[in-house]
């Protein structure tokens, strides 16, 4: 074939950090704090919901359900988010279920980003944002985070979105993992933002079951209608039985909302302890951890280790990549280089940091 086999939309998006680092961790690590998934079990009430659904004798749970989301799940998600956002939500038009938050993001970009559009990405970023924007023909514009990120900054983002009539794709998968009594603020609840925001959520992160790949979007119909079009022309349906079990998980949380037995209260409490333990351990090792207010990741400054792993200006690999490879091969400890989460243009400014995941039992 004289022209290339593959479509142009794949240009520049074939590389992926996980391919290399997951293999390294699998080969060498004794303690894997790299990839972001819990190594503790999903809560019993969730796996029991799946078992109940399977044992219930309703074999139609093994067949297609409603394409835009299993009715039981979209209904309870709408109820939940009505409470959180303080507005009425229609489960049929303001909620859509996706194959993980990953596919929700894909639908957002494919539905709303055209060739020639610019999309602002805050650095460091979950690595898929950049290739997804590019695959949609958009141009990513990178803005680095400074150490402090507060409510005032969310308000500033909101003002700019309204002023320039810009959409906001808000990835809130870690919405329940917030520590030290801090509050997760949903940008969609700020003035002028509901109508221009798509909120992305994840059962994998909410219920510590990343392998179930159930996610969702919540937003106004005038935006979600376009995501539905992408969804119906790409995967169409999501797995029924996983949605049924997640729906039951949410039902339980709805009845326990705000109470101490709520998983959304217990999980952050448990993870805060693990965070504090990891911070202490890294301090003792001589690294300089940055204490996170949320999620189950933390970033540590590795520049004190330049004596063990010296700089190599001639190397084509950034310092943090070389450090993490040395660390996993020699110390059996896996982490991810932070510069992987920066754009090509800014990578070199952030090569002294590595990322650890602390959703781990040890």
């Amino acid at each position, binding site marked *: 074939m004289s022209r290339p086999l593959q479509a*142009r939309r794949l240009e520049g998006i074939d590389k992926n950090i996980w391919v290399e680092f997951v293999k390294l961790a699998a080969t060498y690590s004794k303690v894997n704090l790299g990839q972001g998934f819990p190594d503790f079990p999903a809560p019993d009430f969730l796996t029991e919901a*799946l078992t109940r659904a399977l044992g219930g004798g309703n074999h139609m749970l093994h067949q*297609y359900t409603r394409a835009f989301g299993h009715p039981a799940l979209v209904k309870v998600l709408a109820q939940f988010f009505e409470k959180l956002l303080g507005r009425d939500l229609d489960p049929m038009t303001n909620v859509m279920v996706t194959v993980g938050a990953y596919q929700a993001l894909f639908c957002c970009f494919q539905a709303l980003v055209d060739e020639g559009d610019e999309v602002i990405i805050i650095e460091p970023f979950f690595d898929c944002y950049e290739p997804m924007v590019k695959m949609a023909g958009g141009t990513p514009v990178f803005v680095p985070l400074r150490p402090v990120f507060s409510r005032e900054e969310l308000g500033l983002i909101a003002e700019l979105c309204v002023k320039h009539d810009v959409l906001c794709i808000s990835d809130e998968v870690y919405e329940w993992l917030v520590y030290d009594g801090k509050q997760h603020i949903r940008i969609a609840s700020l003035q002028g933002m509901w109508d221009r925001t798509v909120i992305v959520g994840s059962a994998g992160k909410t219920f510590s079951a990343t*392998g179930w790949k159930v996610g969702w979007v919540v937003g106004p119909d005038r935006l979600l*209608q376009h995501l539905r079009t992408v969804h119906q022309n790409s995967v169409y349906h999501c797995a029924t039985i996983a949605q049924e079990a997640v729906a039951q998980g949410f039902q339980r949380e709805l009845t326990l909302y705000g109470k101490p037995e709520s998983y959304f209260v217990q999980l952050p409490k448990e993870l805060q302890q693990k965070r504090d333990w990891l911070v202490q351990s890294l301090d003792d090792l001589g690294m300089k951890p940055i204490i996170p207010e949320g999620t189950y990741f933390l970033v540590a400054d590795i520049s004190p280790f330049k004596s063990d792993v010296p700089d190599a200006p001639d190397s084509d690999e950034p310092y943090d990549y070389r450090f993490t490879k040395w660390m996993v091969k020699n110390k059996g400890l896996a982490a991810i280089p932070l510069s992987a989460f920066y754009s090509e243009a800014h990578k070199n400014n952030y090569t002294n940091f590595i990322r650890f995941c602390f959703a781990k039992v040890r």
Partner: protein
Amino acid sequence: MPFRHKNTRRIEGLDSNVWVEFTKVAADPSIVNLGQGLPDISPPSYVKEELAKVAAVDRLNQYTRGFGHPSLVKALSQVYEKVCGRKIDPLTDVLVTVGAYGSLFSTIQALVEEGDEVIIIEPFYDCYEPMVKMAGAKPVFIPLRCKNDGNTASSADWVLDPAELANKFNSKTKAIILNTPHNPIGKVFTREELQVIADLCIKHDTLCISDEVYEWLVYKGNKHIKIAMLPGMWERTVTIGSAGKTYSVTGWKLGWSIGPEHLIKHLQVVHQNTLYTCPTPLQEALAQAFWIDYKRMDDPDCYFYSLSRELESKRDRMAQLLKEAGLKPVIPDGGYFMIVDVSTLNVDLSDIDEKQPYDYKFVKWMIASKKLSAIPLSAFCGPETKKQFEKYIRFCFIK
């Protein structure tokens, strides 16, 4: 400032969908729904049991390998090595996707773009056209035509005209989408028919996207042949399969693409940028089910063969009932759909909305007056052939 955000160009005109209209109607429990293709028979018990076992294993609730859970891609490569008689590498030649639907999407997004033409055989599974359009390419339609002037009794009577087909190929033709066994007609393409398509693919250096989700559902006297096995075709074909259709678990939404590394690698790039991984527990359970049937692939009790025996009698029963009602069914050689010529009934549909094709009006009348639903065939063709297909409706018999 007024809100300027609308849909992107790639999805312009792709929002409507035949299912949205007809599944809503058929959701009424008093209606016998023979429209949408989903089984209401139970999946085999061992399939459900495997999933129940998996639910108890902690690590199976977390992410697995993006391109396919290791035990599943291994099982798939073994099963298909046996079927195809060639080596299939589980890591490079197989991609697990969200249903066959997801495989079609990954294949088209990976290999088709603006400037390309893609040949689609009518009638077609309805997603082919919008997926080709979403990739920016031009669908080029070619209809199956009935050999004996409409007096057809079998899906084998519906054929492609080789000269007409050859005319559809040109230097822009990037791919042809083949569906065998065929939905909705139930045609099982013969080796000779596949050879005609293969010859053209090789001559014009065109890819073949072969949707074989109903590969196990072939009835007596017929054999499913994989076009990828014809000489010169493995290197230019992506073959798509479905757990939903293989094991009667459409709600598991697992499918796969199998092909040469130099094609599959591009599908993997799409996959890693769209949803990355498929659900782990379902993949593990499916792998275990495949191992059970792999071990008995030489045994008639293997589900791959027992399901088609079960469906053959359902097919015959439905054909009988339709004939007794004065209708002319086209007996399918494969798949679980049957198309029926309803014009013979001469039902007066003049009071229903004129703008719709005859079969749409007929189905709406049938739902209202006979409490029975089916799908109008013109939903599965391009604009130029609607007249040819509007006297047919499609029934599903995996019920």
